[in-house]
């Protein structure tokens, strides 16, 4: 055994100890970061509640120059655009997921899925740019509006941005439904179409719901695109008609105004407060979505035997 004697010398195991330590720290870092983000938002955002009283925060006038900090129009703007985007992204995202997973020939799927996922990676500023230069003039003419920079334009673009998320996650979920489910249904005389909607999609419903939630999360959080195409008017939307007028979202407000405020001013703190609202919304959306993801298959493969 002589050749082994110089092993496990202390420097070797010390190195291994340090590496393992780093791995563990990195492992827990995600928790630390989420915690830190929340703490910093709270530290900078909560003073807003002291400096502006709650009733004026929860009002419908956003005009910071004259110290009107009502965030309702911004929340309303985010809601109307997200709603519109969801109405687009859900049918198209799930429809194309069903198509790719259940109907399309193999090669089509291999071609289109990566293509759609590329859209998920396109910088949102590029989409906003095209939205401004191409989509909004087109919609203005088409719908004969005074301006093309509307909630509707934003919703369409945001829907497009959310589709890859919805499609990709939903497609994975559909793909994971065992072949035997479909075979059993087809053997009982159902058509493929009936099998899709009565067997496959219901069997994948938790994954499909996750897909929808993640799509919504993506839409609420999107910043640059909406800032560039929605006209940025902080008007509280009061009905479906507002879909065709300019609005302003929470994200766009932060992005547009944070650069110009004095650090520590009331306006600065209010923008962080909006950040808290956004953080909490995304937390709620993602925790809902993630309850499903956890039914992950375990890797407790037995030791070789």
């Amino acid at each position, binding site marked *: 055994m002589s050749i082994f004697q110089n092993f496990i010398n202390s420097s070797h195991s010390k190195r291994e100890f340090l590496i393992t330590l780093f791995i563990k720290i990195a492992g827990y870092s995600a928790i630390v970061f989420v915690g830190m983000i929340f703490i910093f938002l709270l530290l*900078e955002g909560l003073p807003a509640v002291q400096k502006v009283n709650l009733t004026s925060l929860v009002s419908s006038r956003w005009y910071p120059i004259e110290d009107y900090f009502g965030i309702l129009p911004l929340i309303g703007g985010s809601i109307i655009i997200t709603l519109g985007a969801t109405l687009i992204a859900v049918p198209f995202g799930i429809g194309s997921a069903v198509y790719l997973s259940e109907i399309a020939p193999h090669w089509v799927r291999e071609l289109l899925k990566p293509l759609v996922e590329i859209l998920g990676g396109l910088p949102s500023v590029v989409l906003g740019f095209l939205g401004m230069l191409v989509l909004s003039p087109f919609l203005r003419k088409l719908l004969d509006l005074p301006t093309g920079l509307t909630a509707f334009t934003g919703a369409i673009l945001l829907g497009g941005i959310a589709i890859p998320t919805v499609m990709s996650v939903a497609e994975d979920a559909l793909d994971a439904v065992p072949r035997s489910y479909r075979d059993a249904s087809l053997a009982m005389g159902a058509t493929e179409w009936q099998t899709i909607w009565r067997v496959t999609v219901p069997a994948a419903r938790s994954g499909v719901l996750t897909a929808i939630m993640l799509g919504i999360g993506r839409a609420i959080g999107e910043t640059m695109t909406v800032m560039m195409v929605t006209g940025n008017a902080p008007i509280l939307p009061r009905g479906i008609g507002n879909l065709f007028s300019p609005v302003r979202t929470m994200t766009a407000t932060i992005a547009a105004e944070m650069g110009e405020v004095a650090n520590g001013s009331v306006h600065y703190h209010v923008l962080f407060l909006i950040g808290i609202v956004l953080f909490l919304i995304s937390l709620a959306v993602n925790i809902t979505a993630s309850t499903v993801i956890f039914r992950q298959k375990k890797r407790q493969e037995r030791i070789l035997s």
Partner: protein
Amino acid sequence: MKSSHMRHRQQQFGFSLLTLMTLFTVIPIAGVVIYILILGTPAINWEFLTGFPREGMRAGGIWPAIVGTFYLTLGTSVFAVPFGIGAAIYLSEYASDNRATQLIRIAIINLAGIPSVVYGLFGLGLFVLFLNFGTSILAGSLTLSIMTLPVIISTTEEALRAVPQAFRTVSISVGATKWQTIRRIVLPQALPGILTGVILGLERAAGETAPILFTVAAFFLPRLPNSPLDATMALPYHLYVISTQVPGMPIKIQYGTALVLLVFVLSMNIIATSIRSRARARRQW
């Protein structure tokens, strides 16, 4: 019960509808890329790529923005890659299936979902102001790193888990330690998958605007940054600036900038996916 003829018609109609919907999704994607390619190409020339902006950015080139985005991507990788891979190793090789691990997973999912502009706020609060890094490449890279982390962690973990368990058992059985097993077998085998994940993460960092708005980006800075504590121009922010903030901006320059950004990001995407598919074809297990 509907007649079989009816059911057949229903199916045909349904299939056609879904096919159409998919086309409706895919064609605009291809359209966006092609459109920018066509309108952007005329702007591309040597001066545009390597020159400094002139005449209030209405002429000249975008070199500082290209360099800035390159530095930011590099800076992001310095922090995000070791931490992301470390966390993935922890989850795949060390963590047992308990509460703490669940909490880590929830945290990762939430990190992935936090709006990018909120990362910007956080970066402003922590790095720019509290730690006093100022608007700088350092502050911006760190902000982007945390945003990129979940992408790197999840793809890397997936790659690690794909390495057959039997290799680990064999390695341990001939007297390797856990870390030796990871270092010599698991990591090399998972490398292509890890690279793919890292590049996809960095791709996201390269294209983001909102997180760098208040942490690093300079509106106009006609020189190159020479330390991590300098501010810098960056492609995505530059595109935002010239398309919304500068009146009388030649459209050609705007499309040219969009094209450069698109090529920067898409080439990363293509590299990442081709590494993945090439490795899949060559894999021995």
